């Protein structure tokens, strides 16, 4: 799961996979503008077949938050 998130982030943000790790935050990544953020969210929704709430989209500004929030949606699905 973590690896897949990193892959998606690298692909959408158009940076090398080594440039993303568990401490990455939005302000560290030059390409991570609002349009890239949108594309990132669309990709997560597609990939994990979920619909993210606007409040969560606003909070997913770091690898850590992305991972936590996606995990919570997937857990909800499973229950």
């Amino acid at each position, binding site marked *: 799961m973590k690896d897949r998130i990193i892959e998606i982030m690298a692909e959408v943000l158009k940076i090398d996979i080594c440039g993303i790790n568990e401490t990455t935050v939005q302000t560290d990544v030059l390409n991570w503008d*609002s*349009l890239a953020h*949108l*594309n990132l969210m*669309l990709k997560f929704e*597609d990939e994990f077949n979920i*619909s993210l*709430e*606007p409040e969560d*989209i606003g909070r997913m500004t770091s690898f850590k938050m992305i991972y936590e929030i996606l995990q919570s949606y997937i857990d909800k699905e499973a229950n």
Partner: protein
Amino acid sequence: MKYYVLRNYTVENLFDDSCSFSIYNALNIEKINKWDGEAVVCFLMYPLTGNYNDKISAVEANIETLKMLIDNCTKRIILLTMHPISKSYHPTSDFKLSKLVNEYNEICWNSSSTNNNVICFDYSSFLRQYPDCLLIDWKHFYLSQLGLNPKLAGDFKDWFSAQYNSFLSVRKKCLVLDLDNTLWGGVVGEDGMEGIKLGGSYPGNAYEDMQRRIYAAYENGVILSLCSKNNEIDALQIIENHPNMVLKNEHIAINRINWNNKAENIQDIAYTLNIGLDSIVFIDDNPSEREIVKSLLPDVVVPDFPDKPYLLPSFIEEVLSKYFSIYAVTKEDINKTLQYRQNAEREEFKNRFTDYHQYLKELNMLVEMSLAKSFDIPRISQLTQKTNQFNLTTRRYSEDDIRNMINNKDIILCARVKDKFGDYGLTGLCIVKHNGVDSVDIDTLLMSCRVIGREVENEFIRQIIQYLSKLGYQHITSSYFKTNKNSLVESFYENNGFYVIEQNVNYKNYELFTNVYNTVSNNIVEVIWNNERQDN
């Protein structure tokens, strides 16, 4: 493709990364005219926010923007029509907003038919494929102003490039049709003229309707051929005499009604018409025939055939829109079946002669050479877009590009070819650019494959060299760029007096000094020069 997109909502996810996007609703004409891409896309969507009156003002503003763009933009413009995709509360007898949307669309339609620079795509042909509730994802709309549900982004890209390809006429050329249980219900050999189902009540009406739709393809330049396992005389009897037969003999370029293997027949059709197998779509109800053709001729498109006659008309429309879409029809397109029929007759004629040289002379070929006129521009652009086999550099040019070359005093030579079987029209093109004072470069040299292989191409280059020499140019350079379709002309320049000065696996560069160029015409092709000047 590189576009500048004038938009009122977020559409970045609907286009490639190489595109640029306007600020929402803002038209900056100066910036657009200076920008160096393929075309400007005007994609102003139906307003999604506000109440009825807010939407009216928004569409009024869009109309002003649209007019301003059309009147002032010097680039190619692609307009997308506007379509209501969300509700707004208002008295049901009030049609003001609908009228404004119509006004917007009428401007799109009219300017695309009066202005060569403007292309119009019908956005509703995309939207109609989906239920209303799928068109907008309101969450992403209010978060990011996405004007279309992001789940449809991939479909939109495919649709848009299909529209653009239809504009560039990237399409298949020939529809090869089976007869029994394909163009009519039943089997001629068993049911006879009275027994087959064609016209009248179901299922005959479905077959007749399908034929009407195929006829429209014929009228728009698709070549029709028949390939059926039948006694030819029985089948022709139906085609000629059945009262509900829409497709008649004169609409068919070539028949292969016999008991041979269909793959061989289709190969023969391609050979006789001088088209590639990848330009053919084959329609047959019999799955085993389709399988044979698919496996032996993988380049031929073989769509699955519906198992119920009532599905035939919609099936054929799908096939036509997928493989034969065309943006606008030229005179050359319309005459195409006639020309291909003549080609087939010519092939038969050729078989009567053992001496090829004598055969060529008997064809009475005539080439009329001229400089490009402004009315030739659409055809010249079309030739650069469509010609693949006899094309030395395969450079694709828009009408604007050609117009700029003429303004630039580049030399554009056209060849119109005729023979005893018919008139091919403008089928040879050469674009020459200035290298220096007495040196020129052949930027483009191409001929339609309908006329090559009969010495016309050798006469054409001979005429070009002589013409340039007369103008005082002593040095001519030229190139061959390899593509996967133009191996035919790999050695064309060598064979016509040019010397290779540089080469690798992908290209060759040549030169020729006109003072040492010496060649004798073989007197097969007659040439006349139309000496009017090139338009400016």
